[in-house]
């Protein structure tokens, strides 16, 4: 029979773990809500940008723009977006698994761009070359983080040092669901607009205009992905911590049962001792 004191100690320890996991769950829920709000706020910008880009693409030749030009993918940069922290279920490991699959099938030369501390920690001691990493910024995520990643890849792409840029991240489906998706950032796949603004003046001219809008598009895509990934991370953490809290409650119930059984057994033993002793005396 387990020692009463030991069981009591375990109950206390599981209870304090449960307090932590339930606090983490609530923090994650609050952060997720904020991240979701930011996603919604970013939408009007995307909408207008798409519209103008589509119009411009219709009237210009895509081969004129360095960011639209397609080349054979000899050198690829793979941006992998993980979180800065763990304790969020399969959020980070799903990304790493997907990256591994990608590296296996990739023919050309691939360099990694880890975004988030977990992904970087995983790859920095491995043989895959790392182009540049961006870590520990999700707590105060700002648009400038997206632009610094964006200008780095745009720069290398226009200097023909990269032929393709892909990104792997967790898409925010709902609070309880994240899907790993792979997208191509560069070259940009542009949807030509259908609606025409006739006799529109382009200043300085359509090609220059498109050239200055395409980087905005890349930066915006990265921003959206960072926001989605952050919201997804918080959602995953919320789910994981909720499960942990439930498990802790289950463990506490079980331990309490054992504790009471042990206590009852001890009392029964004591009583039968006393009864046995008393009988021995009266005889």
């Amino acid at each position: 029979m387990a020692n009463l004191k030991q069981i009591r100690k375990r109950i206390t320890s599981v209870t304090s773990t449960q307090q932590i996991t339930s606090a983490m769950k609530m923090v994650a829920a609050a952060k997720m809500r904020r991240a979701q709000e930011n996603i919604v706020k970013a939408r009007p910008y995307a909408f207008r940008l798409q519209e103008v880009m589509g119009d411009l693409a219709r009237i210009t030749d895509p081969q004129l723009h360095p960011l639209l030009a397609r080349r054979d993918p000899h050198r690829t940069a793979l941006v992998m977006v993980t979180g800065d922290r763990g304790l969020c279920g399969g959020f980070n490991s799903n990304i790493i698994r997907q990256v591994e699959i990608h590296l296996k099938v990739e023919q050309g030369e691939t360099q990694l761009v880890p975004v988030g501390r977990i992904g970087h920690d995983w790859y920095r001691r491995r043989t895959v070359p790392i182009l540049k990493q961006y870590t520990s910024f999700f707590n105060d995520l700002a648009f400038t983080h997206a632009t610094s990643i964006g200008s780095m890849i745009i720069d290398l792409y226009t200097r023909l040092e990269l032929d393709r840029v892909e990104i792997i991240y967790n898409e925010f489906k709902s609070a309880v669901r994240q899907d790993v998706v792979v997208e191509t950032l560069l070259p940009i796949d542009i949807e030509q607009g259908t609606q025409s603004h006739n006799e529109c003046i382009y200043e300085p001219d359509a090609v220059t205009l498109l050239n200055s809008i395409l980087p905005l598009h890349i930066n915006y895509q990265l921003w959206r992905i960072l926001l989605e990934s952050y919201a997804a991370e918080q959602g995953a953490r919320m789910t994981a911590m909720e499960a942990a809290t439930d498990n802790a409650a289950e463990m506490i119930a079980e331990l309490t049962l054992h504790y009471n059984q042990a206590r009852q057994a001890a009392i029964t033993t004591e009583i039968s001792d006393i009864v046995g002793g008393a009988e021995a005396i009266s005889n």
Partner: protein
Amino acid sequence: MSEQHDFPLEIVTPSGVIFTGRVHHVMVPGADGYFGVLANHAPLTAVLQTGKLTVDTAAGEKVFAISGGFIEVTPERVALLSETAEPENSIDIPRAEEALKRAQERLAAGEADLDVDRSRLALARALNRMRIASHE
């Protein structure tokens, strides 16, 4: 025939819609210099550079610091897209000064892998924000 003298304007950034409302006049930093847009302007899409954006509304003048982007004028409305748009009274001057110093140092140090264009742009942005904040 009555002419309309104001038009709807929307200032949009990736962090949200910064301004929306009816205005009489907008002054924007175009690629070749500042230009104004009044009601009934011809359809136009133009590149903007980092600079000062002035908006005249019925309630008075509003000034923003913007970092490039573009403006789209259609018969129905005017939309201005920029990666940042800060109202003049909410510019964080110490932060702008810091960014300015950083950019200057980087340009002065002239390291081998320095991205001169990017540093220049950062410098221009910081200067712009400080100028607008101090009403120069």
